[in-house]
C-alpha cells in the first residue's frame, strides 16, 4: 500500500510516495542529494554518510530514511557541504588514491564528488595504509587501495547475481572486502559479466585489459559533473571550480 504525500527539500515542495526513501523521492523530483554508496536496485548500505541531510533539523541519511508526510529536509546548507567535504576527504586519505594514473579517473564517483564539492586537495593527513591487490582472477582485479567500503559489490553479488562472492572481513580501519575462497577472487565463481563487477564507484574492482578503452577526456564526469544526470537544472561544470 502506498500513499502520495508531500515533503519539502530546501523549501521546495515535492511529491513522494510512502515506500520511497528521501533519496528516491529527491531523485524523482530532479533534486540531487550527493551519495556514494547508494545504488539503484540495491538495499541501501548507509555507510558513506555523504547523503546526510537534516530531517526536521536532525541528521539522517537520505538513502535509508523512508519519507514521511510533512518532512522538512535541508540538503544544500553550508554546514552540510562542509560535512560532505570532510567525509570525501576522509575517504581520500584513508586509502591510496592516485587519480592521475588510475584507470577509473573520469568515471570515478569519488573523484567526481570531490570536483563537485570543490575539493582540490584534502586538508587531512594521508594515512597511507598498506593494502593488497588481488589479481588472481583472469578477468577482474581487486585493488584494495582504492576501496571506499560502499558495500555495493557485496549487495550486487547477492541481489543481482544470485551469488555470494563478497563480504566484509576484519573490523575498524582494518576491515576489507573479503572473497568467498581460501586464496583470492580467482577461486570464486565470480565472472567479469557479473553485475557486481560493474557497480564499484571507484577503481577498486576493475576489469582487466579494458582500462583505457575510453580515453581520458571522454569519460562520464569529464563531460558534466556528477549529479547532473539527476538534477533538473544541472550545475554547469564551471561552477564546480
Amino acid at each position, binding site marked *: 500500500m502506498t500513499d502520495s504525500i508531500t515533503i519539502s527539500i530546501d523549501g521546495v515542495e515535492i511529491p513522494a510516495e510512502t515506500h520511497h526513501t528521501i533519496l528516491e523521492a529527491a531523485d524523482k523530483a530532479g533534486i540531487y542529494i550527493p551519495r556514494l554508496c547508494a545504488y539503484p536496485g540495491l538495499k*541501501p548500505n548507509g*555507510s558513506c*554518510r*555523504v547523503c546526510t541531510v537534516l530531517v526536521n533539523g536532525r541528521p539522517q541519511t537520505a538513502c535509508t530514511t523512508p519519507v514521511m508526510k510533512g518532512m522538512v529536509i535541508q540538503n544544500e546548507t553550508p554546514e552540510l557541504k562542509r560535512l560532505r567535504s570532510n567525509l570525501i576527504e*576522509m575517504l581520500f586519505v584513508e586509502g591510496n588514491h592516485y587519480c592521475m594514473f588510475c584507470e577509473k579517473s573520469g568515471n570515478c564517483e569519488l573523484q567526481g564528488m570531490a570536483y563537485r564539492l570543490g575539493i582540490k586537495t584534502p586538508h587531512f593527513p594521508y594515512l597511507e595504509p598498506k593494502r593488497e591487490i588481488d589479481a588472481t582472477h583472469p578477468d577482474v582485479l581487486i585493488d584494495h587501495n582504492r576501496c571506499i567500503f560502499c558495500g555495493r559489490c557485496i549487495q550486487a553479488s547477492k541481489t543481482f547475481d544470485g551469488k555470494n562472492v563478497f*563480504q566484509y*572481513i576484519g573490523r575498524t580501519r582494518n576491515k576489507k572486502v573479503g572473497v*568467498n*575462497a581460501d586464496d583470492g577472487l580467482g577461486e570464486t565463481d565470480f565472472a567479469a559479466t557479473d553485475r557486481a563487477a560493474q557497480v564499484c564507484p571507484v577503481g577498486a574492482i576493475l576489469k582487466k585489459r579494458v582500462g583505457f578503452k575510453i580515453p581520458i577526456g571522454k569519460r562520464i564526469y569529464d563531460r558534466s559533473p556528477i549529479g547532473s544526470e539527476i538534477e533538473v537544472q544541472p550545475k554547469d561544470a564551471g561552477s564546480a571550480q
Partner: protein
Amino acid sequence: MSEFENTIHTICESYGGDRARMMDIVRDVHEKYGCCSGKAMNLIARGTGAHRVEVQSVVTFYAFYSEKPKGRVVIRLCNDIVDTMFGIEHVARAFSEELGIGFGETTADGRFTLEYTPCIGMSDQAPAALINEVVVTSLSSDSVRGIVRTLRESGDPQKLVRRLGDGNNAHKLVRAMVQNGLRKKGPVVFAEMESGNALRKALALSPVEVIRDIKTARLRGRGGAGFPAGMKWEFTRAADGDRKFVMCNADEGEPGTFKDRVILTERADLMLEGMAIAGYAIGAQEGIIYLRGEYAYLRKFLENVIENRRRDGFLGKDILGKKGFHFDVRIQLGAGAYVCGEETALISSCEGLRGDPKTRPPFPAQKGYLEQPTVVNNVETFCCVARILEKGPGWFVEMGSKGSPGTKVLSISGDCNSPGVYEFPMGVTMAEVLREAGADDVQAVQVGGPSREIVGPEGFERVICFDDLATGGAIVILNSSRNITEMARKYMDFFVEESCGYCTPCRVGNVLMMKKLEDILDGKGQLSDLDYLHDLAETVKTASRCGLGQASPNPILTTLERFRPFYEKLLRTHPKNFDPSFDLRAAVAEAEGLVGRKSAAIET
C-alpha cells in the same frame, strides 16, 4: 571423515546447523583448537549452509576470535585508563619479561599469547587481566611472576585462583577471585528479594496493565540513554510479528562500568524475573541474555540460575500456572567487541553476524532479532522492572528525581579510597558521590565513560540523573596528578580500536582526531589545531551511523571545553603556513636511504 572434520561437524550439529548460532559454533571451535582456521571455516560453512566468507566475516570481527593459531593460554591484560593509573606498565613489562614475548605475540612453543584488551569490567580491582576465561585482579609485577610460574607448571589458569571472592564469586560454578565491592545497597536493585513475588503480581494483571505500571513508574533505561522503558514495550507489544523477543543487554563495555557484573553475580534472579515480566507484557516467549565474552566466567552460574528458575516454575511453560504464558531464556556469549553493546549490533551478533549496527528505521521494536519485534533493555533496567511490579509504581517514584525516579547503580573507580558498586537514589549530587567514595583530591570525574563527559569541580553540584549527569554507571575519579589530555588520547584510542568500521566518519574521523591529539601531545601542535579538532568532531558526531561514533568525539569535546589550559600549554603559535607536525627529517629519510647519504640542506 577425519577427526577434525568430525569434530567440526558435530559442533555444527549441536546447534542444529543453524547459522544464526555462528557465535557459539565459532566459540566451540576455538575452545577445541584455539583458533578458527581456514579449514575450519570451510567446514563450518558446509555444516551451516553459510558461505565461507560469511563465516570469515564473523571470525575476523571479534577480538576473541582468530583465524591464526594462538597460544593455549591467552593472557589479555586490560589497558583501560584506570589500569594505567595503577601501574599497568610494570605489570605489562613483567608479563613480557617472564614470557619473553611482546604484546600481540605468541611464544614459540605455542603455549602463551599476550595481548591488550579494553576494559574488562574490573576497574575497581585494577590492574586486571583475563587469562583464557579466568579473571585475575589487583596485579603487580610480583604477582605476575607467580602467575606465569603457575601457568608454566600446570597450564591451567583456574589454578591461579587461590582465594575466592565474596558472595557468589565463591559459588562452586563461579570460583573467581573477583570481589563484588558492593559498598552501598539500595532499595531497588540490591535489597533482598524473594523469587516469584514480582512475577506473581505481574501475572495477576493484564499485559497492558503491566506496561501501564512501568509507564507510571516513569522507568528509564539504565544502560545509559535513559529511554522510557514503558514506551519501548508498548511499541513492541503493538508491532506485528510471528515471534517476539526480550533481550537483556549484559555487554557492559563502557570503560569504567562494572555494576552489571555485580548485579549478574548477586541479583540474577531479580533480572530474570524482570525479563519474564517483559515477556508477559509484550507477548514474547523467548529471551536472550547477551553476556559479554569477558564475563564468560559467570556463564555456568547463570545457566544454573536459569535452570533453577525453570524447576521452580518461573521460566518455561505455563509459568506459575498461568495457562498459555510460556517464556524461556538462553545466554548468548559475546566475544570482545564493545560495539555489540549497541542494541542493533547486539542483535546482529545474536543472529550470528558481524557486530555491525543495523540501519534504523526500522527500530528493534518493529524489526529486531530475526526481523521480529524485540525489546532490548539493560540488566539493571530489568531489576527495576521486577521491583516496580513487586512494590508498585507509587513506591518507585517516591525515590529519585522527577525526571528519573528510582535508584542508579554506579561503578566507582579511580582515585578514591573506596572504589566499588554503589546504589544511590537518582538525583544525588556528584559531591555526595565523591564524599561517599572517599575521594578528597579530585581534579575531574569522567561520568558515563568516554561516551559521556568529563566534569571538573565547577560541576560537582550537578546531579546524577538522565536530565543532567546521565550515566550508564561509570564514574572514574581523577586526582590532580592526572594528565587530562593524555586521558583524552587514551579514550580516543579506545574508540579507534572499537569502531566497527562500517561508516566513514567513525572509521576514519576518529583516527584523524587521535593523530592530531598525538601531535599535540608531542609538542607539534599549534593553536589552529583546536579548530581543526572541533570541525572533525562535529562531522563525526553528526554523520556517524550509531551511538558509538556519535559519542566518540566527546573525550575531546568535553576536555576542550572544560580543561582547555591543558591543551593551550602544549600549543604554540607559528607563522602562517608553517606546519609544526611536518617532520622534514622523516619525510626525506627513505630517499636518503636510497641514495646512501644524508641531505646536507637539513639542519639537525
